[in-house]
């Protein structure tokens, strides 16, 4: 009896320790985000105070009011930036997913010459830091005349995302047994119908997650965007953060407020899509 009790106590202590450990990890992960939200509500004096003021004394939404206010009263063209970000991210994601699906499917299903070399080539492009390409890109874009356009940035982001989406979607199509598409063809589908009726729905969660990654990459990208955009025509939200820096000062509160405005749509999207990301849909297709 005594040893049984002992084990029960030990198990409870262990699960308590797990809980505490996980809680600490979560706090560490969430703290920066929380600090951004908090800073967006506090006056600069309090943010910059030394020693730090841990308990907020003075919370207000002034920064948000000012941000959406008139130019000259701390206002910045948030709506333009937001629109640019949205147009560029959504369009580049849609294109990257379309190419990624076609490419991923080809890599997963077909044999062709130079397949592994090509695949490796795609992966190698991921090893090049994007910032290293910014100057050549800038020069080329300037020559062609697509600096400060949606098109230019969309093109850059598609190129950035395609290798990754191909790689990810290839993996998901590989998990869909080939037999299923064959069964569908015998059941009367054309190859095209077999893809849309059977393979696409099964790889759907994977394609959605590739979409999220592509979207977030485009939505958050700063280095290339800061080079390739100039004005409200094409500046995205991350570049918009620079509006809060001037020669001698940085408006931390305003910057944090804009950061929050940026985070909210990305967070919402991820939250909406994540429940569709549950894998394991394919189990039961073949023996298992």
């Amino acid at each position: 009896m005594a040893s049984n009790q002992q084990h029960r106590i030990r198990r409870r202590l262990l699960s308590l320790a797990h809980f505490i450990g996980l809680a600490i990890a979560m706090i560490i992960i969430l703290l920066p985000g929380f600090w951004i939200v908090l800073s967006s509500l506090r006056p600069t004096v309090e943010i910059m105070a030394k020693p730090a003021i841990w308990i907020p004394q003075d919370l207000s939404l002034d920064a948000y009011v000012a941000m959406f206010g008139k130019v000259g009263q701390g206002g910045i063209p948030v709506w333009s930036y937001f629109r640019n970000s949205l147009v560029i991210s959504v369009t580049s994601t849609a294109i990257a997913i379309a190419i990624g699906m076609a490419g991923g499917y080809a890599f997963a299903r077909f044999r062709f010459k130079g397949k592994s070399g090509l695949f490796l080539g795609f992966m190698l492009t991921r090893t090049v830091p994007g910032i290293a390409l910014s100057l050549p890109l800038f020069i080329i874009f300037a020559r062609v005349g697509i600096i400060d356009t949606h098109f230019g940035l969309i093109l850059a982001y598609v190129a950035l995302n395609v290798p990754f989406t191909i790689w990810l979607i290839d993996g998901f199509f590989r998990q869909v047994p080939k037999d299923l598409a064959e069964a569908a063809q015998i059941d009367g589908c054309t190859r095209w119908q077999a893809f849309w009726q059977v393979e696409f729905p099964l790889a759907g969660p994977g394609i959605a997650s590739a979409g999220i990654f592509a979207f977030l990459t485009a939505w958050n990208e700063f280095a290339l965007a800061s080079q390739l955009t100039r004005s409200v025509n094409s500046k995205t939200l991350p570049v918009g953060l620079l509006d809060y820096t001037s020669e001698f000062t940085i408006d931390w509160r305003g910057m944090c407020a804009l950061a929050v405005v940026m985070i909210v749509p990305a967070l919402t999207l991820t939250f909406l899509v994540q429940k569709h990301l549950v894998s394991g849909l394919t189990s039961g297709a073949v023996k298992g």
Partner: protein
Amino acid sequence: MATVSLKKLVKKYGELEVVHGIDLEIADREFVALVGPSGCGKSTTLRMIAGLEDVSGGTILIGGREVNELPPRERNISMVFQSYALYPHMTVRENMGFSLKIAKRPQDEIDQRVNEAAQILSLNELMDRRPSQLSGGQRQRVAMGRAIVRHPEVFLFDEPLSNLDAKLRSQMRTEIKKLHAKVQATVVYVTHDQVEAMTLADRIVIMRDGYVEQVGTPDQVFKHPATRFVAGFIGSPPMNLFEATIDSGNVVFANGDAIPLPARFKANVSTGKKVTFGLRPDDLFPTGHGIGSGTTDDVFKRDLNVTITEPLGNETLVFFDFAGRDWVSRMLNPRSLAAGESLGVTFDLSQAHLFDATTGVSLSDRKA
């Protein structure tokens, strides 16, 4: 009407030829099993009939119509896959109705035909489940249901039972046989299990390395194997097959032990001929414990030592040491035996087989 004919059918992967000009005529409503060890080209042949593999040479006719270049959907066939290949994102009902939905049939016709198939396979309880919620045997039945809903002219089965356990397999075997009797379609059935082929098929096609070794009824391939390979492949436990040389009316084995040359081969083989001697376990039995005991004169009797016994209840497989090899025999109405025991054994030579040692071809006159 759906006959299936293969004429000089060839499949190549690049330079590698895996099916070498197969000829086969399958009659309407016939149940034909393609059987052979893995890699013999049987599945590839089936997939060519289905249209899932390109044909490298030769012709495939279904119902007299050449289908070489037709996509699977235009061949009026159904296929049951080894993996079942059920659509995981659809319920059983949707799985079974899928082909009709694609063909844009009216909903009430789909319902009616799906229910009809469900009735035949007793799937009614499972119609709203997903494949992942079904057991192996149930998935198998759904896969068959999906195949029969289409009312195809030809059913193709690709090792449909090999993912099931032994008991379920024999159950499903019966169901497939019943199904064939009910739907009256032509069936091409691929399996590596000779028992499945023997029990189900009207005719068996035994394949090896991309060639057809023999085509015949189960009885023909069992009793009159055309080659040594067929003799060894069909039947369980397998035929006793040992190398020997003919020497003045005797079959002499490597260690010098000899058996009289079976009477029916006397005219066909001459002294010095290298042969493979074959005798089924059924035709080799402890004297008084066999099937054919006393029905033929052409027998050879000898006292041999038992090495191992495998009791199966109604019969016992008894292994004897003879000619330096283990020979397996079937003992009916068995009694318990001890290893090392000496026992009178009858070789029913009227049922013996001789094959050419180099070509493997049967030396028998009797044509299969």
